[in-house]
Every structure is written in C-alpha cells, then in structure tokens.
C-alpha cells in the first residue's frame, strides 16, 4: 500500500497529502474481512440478516447473537470487529433512550442513523482514538399510526390545537453507516466479506419498485447470505435474521428475531437455490465439454 | 397631590404586593405524608421443650376494609431454596405490612449470606441478636413491626425471642404480638406460665403454693394457640380469616393453615 512508511497512516487527524485518512481506510479493511450482513427494505417492513462465521466448534449454536435490538422498532446488524459493534449497539441504545427522555416519543430510524453517523464521524477526528472497525446496518419501522407519546393516557383532541396531523408518515427505514461516519439510506444494503455478490443480488430485486413484501424479503435475504457465502464454502456459518413490520404486520411494529419455522423454510429455499445454481454450472460445464 | 395625579411619578409610587417568601431558605422540607399504616392482625409464639410454635392470623386490613383473607405473617428464614425447606428459623411480623415484608426479606438475605459464607446455618440466638441490630439501625425511621423470632437453641429446646419496633428484645417462653396482643397475652400468662394458678389446699395467704411450671406438650400448645385465636377473633375486628401455624422441631418445620371466622 502506498501509505505504508509515509507516516500519514499512523493516526487519525492527519490527512495524507492527497486528502485521505488512512486510519479510516484501514477500518474499512477490517469490515471487509467480517461476515456478510444484509438489510432489505421491503414495502411493508425491513429484514436484517447476517452470516455468522462459526469460529469454534465449542461455541453454542444459536448463542452469541449478532443482531441487536436498539429500541422496540429498531434493529442493528454489523460486519467487522464484533467488540466495536457491541459498543455501537450500546451507544445506539443510549441515543434511543435519551431521545425518548427528551421528546417522549420513539426515535425515528433516520434520526438514529444521523446520531450514530455523527458519533462514528467523531472517531475519525482525534489523535487519541481509532475509527470503528464496523459498518452497521440500521433497520427500523417508524409507526405509521399517530405518533405515540410515552406516558400519554388519553386520545387527545381530534381537531384544533393539539389535534391530529393528517397525512401519511412513518414506514420502513434502512440505513448503512460506515467507519468514516458516512451514512445513507438504502433499499438494500450489504457489507462484509460477501458484499459484492450480495449487492449484485440485491440489485436484481428491483427494491425501488416497492413490490417485494416482507415475507419474500426474508427468503431473499436468506438466499443472498447463502449466495454471498459461496466463495468460502469451507467455512461453517450460522444464518441469523431479524425483521420489523408495521403495527398490523407479523411483528406488530417491533424488531424481533424471525421465527424459527420461517427461518428454517427460508434457509431450506436458500440451500435449494444455490444447489440449483451449482447444477446449472455443472450442466454448463458438461455442455462445454460436449461442444469440445 | 401626587397620589391623585394621572401620571405615574418617575421612580414611584410603588405598590405593595403580598409577596413574602413562602419558603424558608434553609432547604428543610416538611412533608404531610404519613409513611406508616397499621395493617392489623395478630401473632403468637410459644416455646416448648423440643419445639416452638409460631402462629399468626392471615387477615390483612386497611381501616375497616379487609384487603385480603390470606396474607401470611409467619416466614421461614435463611433457607437456600425458594421453598425455604431447609430453613431453621421462623420469623413472624405484624404491624405495618410493607415494613414487615422488607424486614423479612432483609433478615432472610442476611441469614442466607451467613450460610453461604460459613457453610452452616445461623444459630437462633445469633440471628436474634442480628435482628435486634437491624431494627435498631433504623431507630429514627423504624420498621413499624412487632417481630417474633422462633427456632431451636443449641440444646434443641424451643426458643422464642420477641422484639419491639426499635430492636429491644428478650428470650421468652411465649409472646403475643399485634392487634390482639393485649387480649391473648394474659391468657398465655395463665395457661403457659401458670400465673395465678396455685396448688389447691396448699395453704393460706403467703403459704399458698404456686403451681409448678412444666413445659407443655406440643398437642396441648396447638390447642392453646387455636383457642387463643378463636377468642381474639370474637373480640377484635382486625383478626380473623385464617390461622397460620408453623411448628419447628428437630425434624424440620411443619406448616398448618386452619380456618378462623371470616366476619
């Protein structure tokens, strides 16, 4: 790498002459080695999925969750350095709580992404700290119902001062926050080792059209994790998935684990899909041989 | 005359507002909140030769209302399981129920800690001293509770310790506590300690001999407890519903719940 030996990569807060912060770029490298994370914003909810690499046979299956709940309606998944991710989650929870304390209402997905983006960015500015070695995907569902106020006990006036605001608001939200602090909203987000393959698959889903529903998105997310994992098949992994729907959907507006049966079905379909791909490849090879 | 002028005078006049400071500056606060209440009920404990019986009614009241007909007042203390099967001490509390529960939980955790640290259960007389300390530590905001502690002493004899709310205590043969204490205690003096009982025909005046005090057998004591409560129920409105009895012997603790009148 060009940075090595120049001294410009030794600390945050020092730019290289061509305007780069090498510490941040190294942090991105840490992310690129982590298990793949995927988020899909479907028309009626959000799915988060992660390829959890099994680093030891002594680990209990299903334990050591990688997807965390931040507030009732918010979930976070990340790729990269797991301890950094834990701190990211802790901070997210603090932000969500302090928002509730101040405004008596849940934080929106975009506001949380903004707060956390700002937080990560601050870790690129100072000599004494290093950037986060994670890229986090934040998924949420902001209530489409009238915004609830914590501690509110009545329905309030139906018209006039303090009356209800008409019009649609809320809905699913998906954001990805990088070590630089940069964050953008996405229809589909992927990070970690298999991100290239995952992104390619996500693009095929045409998520911007808003046709994919949550149930389909669960299956697609599972499949994409399996596809992205194809390049290092030898490594064992667990698929972990969570989802968030609207108040009238399966999770009632809450972030929760995808139920075992739905997860198992999605995994079954995912395995089938990739084995079919393999078969096709095999067939193609055979055909190639035939032609020879 | 200035006072009839239509125009306000510069720098005056001033008008008086009754804005005396309403609060003292020293930061002291007076509260109009009474942190205590009396939840009624009565307890009773009698020590025998190789046993001790602790009893209490199960009524819990607020004023003239019965909050519940089943709120136990006698607890096993210092066991290691949630069922408290291996406990070796009994505690009864009566007075302010919230303080009673707090005291019970605190003594229980103290005894548990002792047991885990020393690998043996606390002796009854050690626990009795400890309970006194706990009560006295809150001397200026007392647990409004009349506590009685029961168990078997080092010789295997029944032991009963009774307390006032600020930790003054003594070991006794028997004690009644709570709402009907003044009804039950004289009965116990006569029936357990044989007060005012004399040997017939033993003499006149100072020659008259007191009846010999002998420890009562368990079945007789159980009947005594039931009789004491049946009588208290008749005369005290805060006592009734159920009679909870715990009998501790060398074989462990036995619990009985008998019905009392619910009126």
């Amino acid at each position: 790498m060009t940075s090595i030996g120049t001294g410009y990569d030794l600390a945050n807060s020092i730019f290289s002459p061509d305007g780069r912060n090498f510490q941040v770029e190294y942090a991105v490298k840490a992310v690129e080695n982590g298990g793949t994370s995927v988020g899909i914003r479907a028309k009626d909810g959000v799915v988060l999925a992660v390829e959890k690499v099994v680093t030891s046979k002594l680990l209990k299956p299903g334990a050591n969750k990688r997807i965390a709940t931040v507030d009732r309606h918010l979930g976070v998944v990340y790729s990269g350095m797991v301890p950094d991710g834990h701190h990211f989650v802790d901070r997210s929870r603090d932000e969500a709580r302090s928002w509730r304390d101040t405004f008596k209402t849940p934080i929106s997905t975009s506001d949380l992404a903004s707060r956390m983006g700002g937080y990560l960015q601050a870790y690129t500015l100072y000599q004494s700290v290093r950037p986060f070695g994670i890229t986090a995907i934040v998924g949420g569902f902001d209530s489409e119902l009238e915004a609830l106020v914590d501690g509110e006990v009545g329905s309030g006036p139906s018209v006039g001062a303090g009356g209800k605001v008409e019009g649609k608001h809320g809905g699913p939200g998906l954001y990805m926050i990088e070590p630089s602090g940069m964050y953008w909203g996405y229809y589909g987000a992927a990070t970690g080792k298999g991100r290239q393959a995952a992104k390619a698959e996500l693009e095929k889903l045409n998520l911007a059209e808003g046709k994919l529903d949550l149930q389909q998105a669960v299956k697609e997310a599972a499949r994409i994790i399996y596809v992205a994992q194809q390049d290092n098949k030898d490594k064992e992994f667990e698929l972990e998935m969570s989802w968030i729907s609207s108040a009238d959907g399966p999770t009632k507006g809450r972030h929760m684990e995808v139920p075992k049966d739905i997860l198992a079905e999605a995994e079954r379909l995912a395995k089938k899909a990739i084995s079919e791909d393999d078969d096709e490849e095999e067939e193609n090879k055979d055909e190639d041989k035939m032609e020879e | 005359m200035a006072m009839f002028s239509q125009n306000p005078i510069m720098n005056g006049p001033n008008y008086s507002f009754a804005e005396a400071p309403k609060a003292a500056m020293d930061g002291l606060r007076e509260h109009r909140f009474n942190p205590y209440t009396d939840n009624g009920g009565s307890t009773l404990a009698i020590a025998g030769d190789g046993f001790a019986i602790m009893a209490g009614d199960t009524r819990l009241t607020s004023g003239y209302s019965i909050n519940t007909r089943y709120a136990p007042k006698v607890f096993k203390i210092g066991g290691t399981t949630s069922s408290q099967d291996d406990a070796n001490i009994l505690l009864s509390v009566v007075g302010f129920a919230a303080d009673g529960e707090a005291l019970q939980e605190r003594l229980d955790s103290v005894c548990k800690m002792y047991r885990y640290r020393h690998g043996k259960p606390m002796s009854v007389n050690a626990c009795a001293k400890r309970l006194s300390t706990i009560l006295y530590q809150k001397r200026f905001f007392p647990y409004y509770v009349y506590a009685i502690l029961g168990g078997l002493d080092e010789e295997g004899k029944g032991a009963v310790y009774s307390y006032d709310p600020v930790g003054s205590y003594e070991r006794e043969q028997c004690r009644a506590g709570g709402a009907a204490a003044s009804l039950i205690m004289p009965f116990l003096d006569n029936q357990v300690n044989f007060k005012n009982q004399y040997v017939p025909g033993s003499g006149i005046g100072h020659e008259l001999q007191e009846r010999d005090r002998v420890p009562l057998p368990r079945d007789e004591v159980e009947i005594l407890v039931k009789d004491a409560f049946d009588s208290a129920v008749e005369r005290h409105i805060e006592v009734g519903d159920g009679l909870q009895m715990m009998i501790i012997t060398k074989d462990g603790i036995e619990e009985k719940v008998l019905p009392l009148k619910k009126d």
Partner: protein
Amino acid sequence: MDHRPQAWGRPRDDVYGAYDASYMNTNLPNQHTQSPIVTGTSVVAMKFKDGVVMAADNLASYGSLARFTDVKRLRTFADTSVIGFGGDVSDMQYLDRHLTELGIDEAYQSDVGGHNLNARNLHKYLSKLLYHRRSKFDPLWNHLLVAGMDEDDKPFLAAADLLGTTFTSPSLSTGFGSMLAQPIMRKYVPDEASVENITKEKAVEVIKECMKVLFYRDARSMDKYSLAIVTKDGVELSENKLENQSWAFADRIKGYGTQTV
C-alpha cells in the same frame, strides 16, 4: 397611571406605606405538601380459571371536577401483563414512562434467553419501587393492581399501594371499589379454590356489574371504562360504555343534603 396590570388595585406605598410582609415570614421549614392532584378512582379486578379480568374507568378528577374524561388507566406490559392505576395521574404517567423504558431494556435480552418479566416479577418490581419512594418520603401516590400469569402460567393478581404494602387475593379493588365492588366479587370468588369455577364470560359479567355499581354510587366515576382480559395467550384491551342507564330511582331518594322531607 401605572400600566402594569399587576399594580392595578393594589395599595400604593406612598399612601399606605410598604406592605409589611414580615408577619408572613416564618421560621418553619418548607411546607412541601404532598397529595394527589389529578386522580383516578377505583380499579377492579378478579381472577377466573384461565386468567384475570380488570377494569378502570376513563375519568381523571381534579378534586370534585371531572377534569379529563378520556384517560386510559389500564396499561399493558410486554403483552403479557396489565397494570391498573388508581390515584395520582401524573405519577401514573411517570410510572408508565418508567415501564416503557423497562420494557425496552427487557427486550434487549428477550431474544437471547427468552427472558421476560412475568406479572409476579413486575408486581415485585413495582412494589419495591413504591416502598423505596415512600421510604424517601417522596411517594408515588398510586394504588396499583397487577394482573397476568405467573411462572407456572397460573392467573396472578396482586396489589401494591403508595406505602409499598402488597397483597394478593382472587379479587382485588382499589379506592371506593374496595367497599362497593369487592363484596360483589367475593360472592363469586371467596377463595382461591373457587376461581376454578369461574369462566371468562362470568368474570367479565361480574366486573361489568361492579363498574355499574361504582358508576351509580361513586361520585368520582364515569360510565366509560377500559376492560382488560389477561390469559396466557395475551391481553385483550377494550373500551366500554355503561349502557341502559336508569336514574328513575333518583327522585325517590330522600333525606340527603338540604332536602328534609
């Protein structure tokens, strides 16, 4: 003319001399009155064989003024328990926020080990909170009923008041209800054993009867109320109104107030 409205009608210092406020100065400590301000009246609840039914009306009174008429005094926790609040409404809102936070914190863990506070745990938590606050001489002026299922999926119902006093019973009621509703409920569930004979429909019927009696006899009550049914399958919360009211008996009541005949 002094243009400050505050000065209008006040004694002028140049005529009467400055107001002598000294007599109002006391050397007493701050009087920090603590009493409930806006209050909710009774909460009633009883067990049935598969769960618990609870109800509380939607009125929040300011003294004798019916101040707020759309106040929901039953709150669900984690979709498994219900808490009914009697007493001060602002303290209820404080507790509501506190419970929201607690619920969120619990949910962090729930997907890990399936941990969740059941109704018994919740009742213990709240009663400790209330006892702690009374011990600080800063009570939360509420009387709570907590309903749900316990660790064995058996119906659970318990009360906790502002002093931290706790008790449990097959039927419970706060405030006026302890005099008016409790005797009605005790007819059906005098003891734990009798709970087995009560169906959900019967319990709802009894609770509705209690709400009727309370509406007719408790001056700080109203005819709209929330009703919750808790079973192991979750909580059903509904809003109800007392229909078919009859006040025909009213003109036959004699001997109250200034009425002498």
